[in-house]
């Protein structure tokens, strides 16, 4: 077990961890979340009272912790979870944001949404059932969205007599197929959400398990390296030009640093124009900074008065992203009306909005088997595939695997304004010169 870290001396040391939870129906996901909230004393008396009131109404007697997250009337009436729900709890070390995604309806769409902001995914597996098709699907999405850490919670250990072999079987199965995926950090924990084993407190029923309880793991996991601190990227969100005469010469470029670090004096290039300048100062309300890093929101002033507007990106000239009009993405389709090859859509990527055309669907992925289906001609709701896009103007981007901010896009239907697709940019395929035969 990891040695206990000393408690932080003040609020400044409290970190934020965002995680998403995935499980099939009846894997005990809501019970697990309820257990984390309840045992960490994040459920309050009035919430408990409200739960009690609703359970009295359904006449089922037991308090259903799912009622804590299933906030909408239709959800309670139908006993289902419709949408991603966000939950918050804190321990003295960390604050947590849980993106809780439903297990069935609109599954892929919701899990992709919840996964997009997560540092960590908790995947639940029923110890009696082991790894099933849905587990593979959850793992695939966690991998596709490049969630840096994955925790497999083997739940309902109480129903298999806390048997080590049952746990080991899941662990081995998961390890086996996850070699096909991009999972950087994988951990397995045997738990019983219902009984509370290894959730908040370490269980004494599984002496064969040497690792930490789930909450301890969530509290101590190293997450500072999840950010990309290497590739400086600054999407310009808003140009700050005060009307006030006192700031006559102030022309600030406001935005949130999407990657890396920027220092006063750094040479920068503006993309897509390629014009260069140096950073004169980094302005914030709390005073000027010598250096700023991701994900800080700052205002950068340049030495030269060059043309920069919303949607442009500041980078270092010796570390540039791709700038192109054609790019391949992994597309998750999120609307009933299928994606059509040849159709034009609007897109948004960081602070950049534009139009694009679907040039080609290279293949669809069967997310249960990880098999490619090259014959697919459209992507339906909840389907995922590799798509070639053509944008109407050059776009600066990184591969999603390098940077989740500069490598992601949303696709918008221009007629309805609905968000219909989520796209993760692929590393461009290098043109390999064809060898002439001798």
């Amino acid at each position, binding site marked *: 077990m990891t040695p206990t870290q000393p408690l932080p001396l003040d*609020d*400044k040391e*409290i*970190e*934020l961890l965002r995680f998403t939870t995935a499980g099939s129906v009846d894997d005990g996901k809501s019970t697990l979340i309820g257990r984390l909230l309840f045992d960490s004393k994040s459920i*309050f*008396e009035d*919430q408990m009272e409200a739960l009690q*009131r*609703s359970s009295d109404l359904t006449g089922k007697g037991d308090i259903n912790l799912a009622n*804590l*997250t*299933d*906030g*909408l009337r*239709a959800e309670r009436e139908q006993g289902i979870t419709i*949408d991603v*729900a*966000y*939950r*918050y709890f*804190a321990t003295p070390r*960390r*604050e947590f944001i849980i993106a809780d995604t439903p297990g069935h309806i609109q599954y892929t769409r*919701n899990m*992709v*949404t919840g996964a*997009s*902001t997560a540092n960590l995914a908790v995947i639940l597996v029923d110890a009696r059932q082991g790894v099933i098709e849905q587990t593979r699907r959850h793992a695939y999405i966690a991998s596709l969205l490049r969630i840096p850490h994955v925790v497999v919670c083997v739940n309902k250990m109480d129903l298999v007599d806390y048997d080590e072999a049952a746990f080991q079987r899941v662990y081995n199965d998961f390890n086996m197929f996850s070699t096909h995926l991009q999972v950087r950090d994988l951990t397995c924990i045997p738990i019983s959400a219902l009984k509370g084993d290894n959730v908040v407190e370490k269980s004494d029923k599984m002496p064969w398990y040497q690792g930490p309880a789930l909450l301890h793991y969530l509290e101590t996991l190293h997450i*500072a390296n999840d950010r990309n*601190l290497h590739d400086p990227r600054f999407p310009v*969100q*808003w140009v*700050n*030009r*005060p009307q*006030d005469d006192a*700031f006559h010469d*102030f022309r600030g470029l*406001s*935005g*949130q640093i999407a990657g890396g670090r920027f220092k006063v004096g750094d040479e920068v290039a503006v993309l897509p124009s390629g014009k260069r300048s140096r950073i004169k100062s980094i302005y914030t*309300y709390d005073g000027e900074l010598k250096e700023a890093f991701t*994900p*800080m*929101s700052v205002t950068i002033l340049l030495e030269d008065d060059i043309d920069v507007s919303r949607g442009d990106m500041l980078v270092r000239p010796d570390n540039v992203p791709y700038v192109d009009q054609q790019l391949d993405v992994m597309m998750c389709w*999120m609307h009933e009306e299928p994606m059509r090859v040849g159709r034009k859509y*609007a897109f*948004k*990527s*960081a*602070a950049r909005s534009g139009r694009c055309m679907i040039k080609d669907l290279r293949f669809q992925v069967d997310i249960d088997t990880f098999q490619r289906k090259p014959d697919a001609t459209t992507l339906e709701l909840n389907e995922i595939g590799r798509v070639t896009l053509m944008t109407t103007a050059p776009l600066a981007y990184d591969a999603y695997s390098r940077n*989740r*901010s500069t490598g*992601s896009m*949303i696709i918008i239907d221009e007629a309805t*304004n*609905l*968000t219909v697709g*989520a796209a993760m940019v692929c590393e461009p395929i290098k043109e390999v010169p064809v060898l002439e035969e001798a």
Partner: protein
Amino acid sequence: MISYYLSNLDTLESESIHIMREVAAEFERPVLLFSGGKDSICMLRLAEKAFRPSGFPFPLMHIDTGHNFPELIDFRDRRAAELKAKLIVRTVEDALAKGIAVQTPGETSRNRLQTPTLLAAMEEFKFDCAIGGARRDEEKSRAKERILSFRDAFGQWDPKNQRPELWSIYNARINPGEHMRAFPLSNWTEMDVWRYIDRENLEIPSIYFRHPREVVRRDGQWLPVSDLLPLRPNDEVRNLNVRVRTIGDISCTGCIESEATTVTDIITEIAAARVTERGSRADDRRSEAAMEDRKREGYF
């Protein structure tokens, strides 16, 4: 050597600034809803951080129920003047007089009546986005609210048909007549708000701190005695040291017994609290879906 470490509050602050700037850049006529309450006080500081040294790229607007704690209105006006921000006030009183809002018999709280008042004001000024201080941890139907939340031409929210919201990319596209609500504090908790007030040394209205007040016990909470709360025969008026945890219409804002005189005291008190802040709002206790129903109609 710089540590490249960002605390929870710094992370949340940066996210909120990013949201505010997206709203300023994407909408033609945004407005920031300012009530003088603790959440909107944080929002003003975030707006300063997002847009200084420029002025705010939007006016402030208060939908005034007329059922206020008087301390709050003084505070509201003074704060707007200090920040050199334009403040618009639209009142429920006025909306009632014009027939825009209609009171149901026996309805004492005016929180519901803020909805038609707000929608009429959005229409009057052609606002296309209203920035509000709602947080997802407040109430469970809010837990599924988007950061940028779409409202149709009737101001309605359709919780079953929300746009998916991924990464930190916000789809701000709307047609004329439709509008958005933006919630930069979505991911903040009550504790974050108080820690931020503490860290930034923000002034808050005096009613958040301990003060003596005449109160009566109703439905498990202490309600302030005012002209707007008709006393019942059995009511026993008590004079207690109380403070408010959240501020709404005075007729339904419960007070809690408290000895807190500083923000630090409040933080300590909340850390030990066993009831959520919405638990002190009588309007949310009416039914399990009370908030959802008000939100569907276009409430904040």
